[in-house]
Structure formats: C-alpha cells, structure tokens
C-alpha cells in the first residue's frame, strides 16, 4: 500500500516536472527572442549614434542598480525570484513633523531628506537625447530580465523536483527491492 502511494506521488511529481520543463522551454524561447530584439535595437542605435557611442566606454563610473531581485522561499528550500524596480520609494512626507508653531526667524532646522536619490537611468549614459532604438533596446532587455527571473525560478523548481524524485525512487527501491 505504501508502495502504491509512493508510485502515485512519483507519477504526480514526474508530471509536474515534465510540465515545468515544457514551461521552461517556452520561456527560454521568449527570452532568446527578446535578447535578439535588444541586440538589433542596439545595432540600430549604434548606426544612428556612431559605432563607439554605444558600448563600455559610456558606462558610468558609479552605478546603482535600478532592478533588484526578491528571493522568497516557497517550500522546503525552494527559491522563487521576482524582479522589482529599486527606484521606487515611499512618498516623501511634506509638512511639519510635529504639531508646533513655525518660527519666522531664527535658525531653521531643515531635516535632511530621508529618501536617497533615485538611481540614474542608464539611458542617460549615452546622452540626453537618445534615439528611439536605444529605448527599445532598454525595453527589450527589461522584458528579458523579467523572463530571466521566471526561468531561474523554474530551474530551481526543476532541480528541487529532481532531488525529490531521486528520494522517492530510493524509497521505492527499499520498499520493493524485487521490482528493481
């Protein structure tokens, strides 16, 4: 009976794995397409701006990431990724912080702004007025990042499923040594 339950669990896991692999293949194809679109747009931007105008020479000497990953643990060590924009901050509070009278004279204590400066858009590395193709490239690679997070989550799930599958197969071999 235990062997039957194990076999049912094994079948369910196997089906889930095959589904995940199919989903991974689909997302990979879309990611590859987005990246290729991005390269084409970069090539168009290079054609418009000059060969040496879009490349490592334009990278900023100080970079802050606009995009970050949030990793969450779904179950039993299974990591899931989500892309978030790190430039989003809570609205700054404007107005008096305490219920007190304002003084017209005297030293004014202006509180330092708590929110840090928003990260600079990498498009600005390449100039103020950039061609539309460069913006399209940015959009393509941004889509690619979203897909990369989904694919990374799927890969982790497949690895996790693989280890679960191995564990169940070992248990089954112990229960049914004759069948092996």
């Amino acid at each position: 009976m235990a062997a039957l339950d194990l076999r049912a669990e094994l079948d369910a896991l196997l089906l889930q794995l095959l589904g995940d692999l199919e989903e991974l293949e689909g997302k990979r194809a879309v990611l590859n397409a987005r990246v290729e679109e991005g390269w084409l747009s970069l090539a168009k931007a290079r054609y418009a701006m000059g060969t040496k105008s879009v490349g490592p020479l334009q990278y900023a000497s100080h970079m802050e990431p606009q995009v970050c990953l949030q990793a969450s643990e779904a179950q039993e060590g299974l990591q899931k990724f989500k892309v978030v924009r790190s430039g989003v901050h809570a609205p700054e509070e404007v107005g008096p912080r305490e219920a007190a009278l304002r003084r017209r004279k005297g030293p004014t204590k202006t509180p330092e702004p708590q929110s840090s400066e928003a990260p600079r858009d990498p498009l600005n590395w390449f100039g103020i007025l950039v061609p539309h193709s460069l913006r399209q490239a940015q959009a393509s690679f941004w889509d690619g990042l979203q897909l990369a997070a989904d694919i990374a989550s799927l890969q982790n799930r497949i690895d996790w499923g693989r280890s679960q599958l191995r564990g169940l197969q070992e248990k089954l071999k112990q229960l049914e040594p004759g069948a092996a």
Partner: protein
Amino acid sequence: MAGRGKLIAVIGDEDTVTGFLLGGIGELNKNRHPNFLVVEKDTTINEIEDTFRSLGSIPGSVAEANPSQHDPPLWDEIDSWQFLNRDDIGIILINQYIAEMVRHALDAHQHSIPAVLEIPSKEHPYDAAKDSILRRARGMFTAEDLR
C-alpha cells in the same frame, strides 16, 4: 540598504552586457566590485572563471581542493575578490559560449542561489543540449526507472 534584494550579474560579450546594464542591473561604486564582466577577445579563461567563482560564492573548501587549477599569483587576487562574501547575487546571466569555457565551474555549482542562466550570443545561438540544467534533467531517468 535594508530590504534591497539581490542583484543580477552578467558575464557576456559587449552587446549582452551593455543591453542588460541598460535594463538597470549594473552596480559599481568605489567600495564594491562590479556585478558584470565584458568578455573580449583578450579576456582569459582564468579571468572568467575567477569572476564566475567570485559571483557564484563557491565555498572556499571546493576551490582550495584544486589549487593546481589556479596560477599561484592569482590566489591573492581571488582572496581580494572575497568571493565567499558575494551573497548578494541572485542570478548570473552568462552567454552560452562563455559558459562552455568554464563548464567545469558551472557543473560544480550546485546551489540554488545564485541561479545560473545561459543565454545565446550574437554569433552562437542557444543550444539546449549544452545547458547544464537541462543536461542534469536529461539524466533524471534511466530505462530501469521507467519500468
């Protein structure tokens, strides 16, 4: 920055790195190493491997087990990169043709974080048969398992 989350690193050719940096993943300041590497014609395999290991946070015991694979002068560089401390990377994007150069390092990486994603390059389209993850998945089943 509390709750900032993890970074996405990229090891690739000029266009791939430029593109993903345009997407906003780049980090570079006075105190930290960059989370990207532009691989050019004169970039050595050792540099790629060291960068990957520094991003992938491979445990020091694994790296030290094969000291002969690293040139002795590089060992100080590896320490200075503090690859054990780069636990802020969530995903490493790497062109597949570059991944082929350091396949042994990729195959040795078994942790779920950072996740390694192989992506195509302009001259080398993506080949699922070479992907580390899919190769492991292909080895999941044997004829006996399916009886």
